[in-house]
């Protein structure tokens, strides 16, 4: 929520998904034709969940069309694994919203 508001305050349009399952996340990303998919997880299941989302994106042939960011309660040791899956950047607790904004702006330049 905090990140969503920060992104909006930086001039971005944010689709807030709330609690969505893997299929709903992918469906939203596709029908809203977003530039960035942000997964926020506090459950400890980030590896499993992220993998499922990425696999479904691959199945639909759209995985490379989105900038994928993961944030929340993520242990640093899992960062490399997530990046290998195709996540562009990972944000643990204490992340400064401005960093997320800058990363997005840098990486979505047309």
């Amino acid at each position: 929520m905090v990140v969503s508001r920060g992104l909006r305050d930086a001039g971005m349009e944010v689709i807030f998904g709330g609690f969505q399952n893997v299929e709903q996340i992918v469906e939203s990303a596709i029908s809203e034709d977003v530039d960035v998919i942000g997964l926020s997880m506090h459950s400890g299941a980030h590896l499993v969940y992220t993998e499922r989302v990425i696999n479904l994106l691959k199945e639909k042939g759209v995985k490379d069309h989105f900038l994928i960011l993961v944030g929340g309660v993520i242990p640093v040791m899992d960062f490399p694994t997530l990046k290998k899956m195709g996540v562009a950047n990972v944000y643990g607790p204490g992340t400064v919203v401005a960093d997320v904004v800058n990363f997005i702006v840098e990486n979505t330049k047309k």
Partner: protein
Amino acid sequence: MKRNYDIDVLIEKFKKKDKIALARLITLVENNPETTTNIFNNFDSSENDSYIIGITGSPGVGKSTLVNALSKILLENGKSIGIISVDPTSPFTGGAFLGDRVRMTDISLHSNIFIRSLASRGYKGGISRAVFDITLLYEAFGMDLIIIETVGVGQSEFDIYNLAYTTVVIMVPGYGDSIQIQKAGIIEVGDIYVVNKKDLGGEDIVVQMEMMLDDATVQSGWRAPVVMTNSITGEGVDTLIEKIMDHKEHLELSELLKEKKKHRFAYKIEELLSSKIGKVLESLISEDDLNKISNSVLQGKKFKIYDMVHDLFSNVKFEMKKSD
């Protein structure tokens, strides 16, 4: 990382009912309006006319939840639905928080539904410039129904009721007294009124609404009904659908539907004309000319303001009356 926005490729896929193509064409008409005519040139006749329903009301009354509840039933009845949810753009940051999808998780995966969230992007009245274009895309895609959900209803000419055939206005208990309702202008705009969150009461609003609607002159022969609902439990939603269908039938039988359809395009034509005329003006009159007038006004010439503006056109070849 590059997505394909090639119009020809997208149109081909779109015609095969590919939702990814629909999503990308929507992005194009919203962000690159110069491509819109190109895109529309691929649809030379529409075999499909969607029925357009507008859902409006103040923030927090339960519009999205109601759209979700309505859609569930309509989907069960075999309808395909294109939803457009508009939320306001922050006038300070240009950003927007589009949170309507969150209430529609029940229906978002159904194959006969497509949901798109839009930010108003400075457009007045609650919708956005692209909404009109998206309704055309949804029609070309074959949607039976289009539901446009937006905040606010008032007397702006840009309001949802210019686009929708049936406009539903939603209120909740504690909304205010009859004077507030009159002030807000909503008594003239709705085809159907809903008092949502009925678990919290609201009978008093219904009574006031019924009285005001009885008093209001009804030229079209349609007296707007007031329906009580609970969008979370689904109570009253069946009745709401019934009333929407009743209104649709009324429009069809009274030939008013044709008028509404014409109006949907008439208001857009006016808007496009204003924009064209604005461009003509820009080419005829410079910033300098305007600055001269502003400065003169501050230097004791404020009573000359009508003459000064009129004189800008003294070299222009067409007749412009002072009262224009």
